């Protein structure tokens, strides 16, 4: 579905990676390894060399805004440009259900300045899911959540995987890949280490 070939920026790479529809891949590794930069390069927020393609069409075949709707990236800390939570969301019919699935059905009328870090994380995820993307790039989406909320978010992610999305998720939680049935990958010094499957095959 998403194919990354020799992706390189001035700070990371080259990186090769392939995501299948209905699969989840996690990336872990020390801070500063370039995990966030990798996601930024895929979503084309940073300049990069190499190719990233979605179902056979490269990112340069798409206008950048359309690409970012198909490959939704949720950074570790999202930006909020208006005062009210409501102003950051499109009024779509699926919004109440999405908010309820992360336990924040009341949040639309709140003010952004009063949100906790964990609330911001979950709202940013909902905001991205509203785009109905094919691929989700998530940077530590559960780092500030209590265990009950982590379970809620992970359940939500599993339904997205079941419906055919591909997810690439950065995490520092060693248990999370297993809980998400994910393919675990490690990133060190701007490069992805070979995964266990490839190593076993060699």
């Amino acid at each position, binding site marked *: 579905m998403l194919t990354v070939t020799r992706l390189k920026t001035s700070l990371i790479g080259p990186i090769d990676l392939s995501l299948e529809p209905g699969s989840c891949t996690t990336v872990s590794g020390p801070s500063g390894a370039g995990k966030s930069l990798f996601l930024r390069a895929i979503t084309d927020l940073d300049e990069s060399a190499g190719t990233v393609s979605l179902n056979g069409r490269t990112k340069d075949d798409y206008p950048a805004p359309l690409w970012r709707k198909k490959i939704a*990236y949720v950074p570790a800390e999202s*930006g909020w440009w208006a005062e009210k939570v409501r102003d950051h969301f499109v009024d779509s019919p699926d919004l109440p259900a999405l908010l309820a699935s992360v336990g924040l059905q009341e949040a639309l009328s709140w003010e952004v300045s009063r949100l906790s870090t964990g609330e911001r994380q979950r709202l940013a995820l909902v905001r991205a899911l509203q785009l109905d993307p094919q691929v989700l790039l998530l940077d530590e989406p559960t780092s500030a959540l209590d265990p009950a909320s982590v379970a809620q978010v992970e359940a939500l992610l599993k339904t997205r995987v079941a419906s055919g999305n591909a997810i690439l998720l950065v995490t520092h939680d060693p248990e999370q890949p297993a809980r998400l049935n994910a393919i675990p990958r490690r990133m060190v010094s701007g490069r992805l280490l070979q995964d266990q499957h490839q190593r076993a095959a060699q």
Partner: protein
Amino acid sequence: MTGYQVLSYWDILAASVFLILNAVFSISLNLGLTRSLIVSALRMTVQLLLVGLILKAIFFAGSLLWTLLAAAVMVAFAGREVWARQNRRLKGLWGPGLGTAAMLIAGGLITLYGLAGPIRPDPVWSPQYALPLFGMVLGNTMTGVSLGLDTLHTALAKGRREVEAQLLLGRTRWEATRPAARQALRSGFTPIINSMAATGVVSLPGMMTGQILSGVDPQQAVKYQLLIMFLLGGSTGLGVLGATFCSLWRLTDTRHRLRLDRLSGETT
């Protein structure tokens, strides 16, 4: 016209008595302002005496070339000032170039329009009209452009996360930077709006005061002042809009990325 009272250099010296008195107070109260007060007063004196000489020579020569040259020097100084007043600047030639170009185009167009349209001196570029008019237009445009660019660059550098959040939701670079652009335009327009609102109530504008002092009928002076204010407003608006959107264009790219790498760090 009823003529005007000619001033001698002794009259000027007499007028400076109170400024010198201020310096004496500053010394006796140990305010530490003496130096800067005296230096800026002397600087002003030298600058204005020189400008008087130069303007007299240019008026006397009545040459288009010298008039254009004087205008070019004014633009260069204004460009330097806009550059110096920004906390964060565009890197490379864009830094000094963008503000200067915006002022040159906006100020030049408006000045030509004012000269060829309503004022109509003979010849149209007559330095006695063109240079003071261009100076006023340039000065006001300079204030607007430097405020606009400074606000825009600070807003983008500090609001990177907010801009990128909108880009990530599939919005274009123009949509995502709209809050920053609005802030920049507002602060660029504020001085000229304020000065239009206060003109005539709080202060009599310098040019009008000058004309009245030199014997022009107040109603004529008011007409001139209105004309000038409209030209200043037009030029400031054009300059601020042009500079802000051009800088936004430079600080984003066709892949709708925010390019803060094209902006210098904070200058201290």
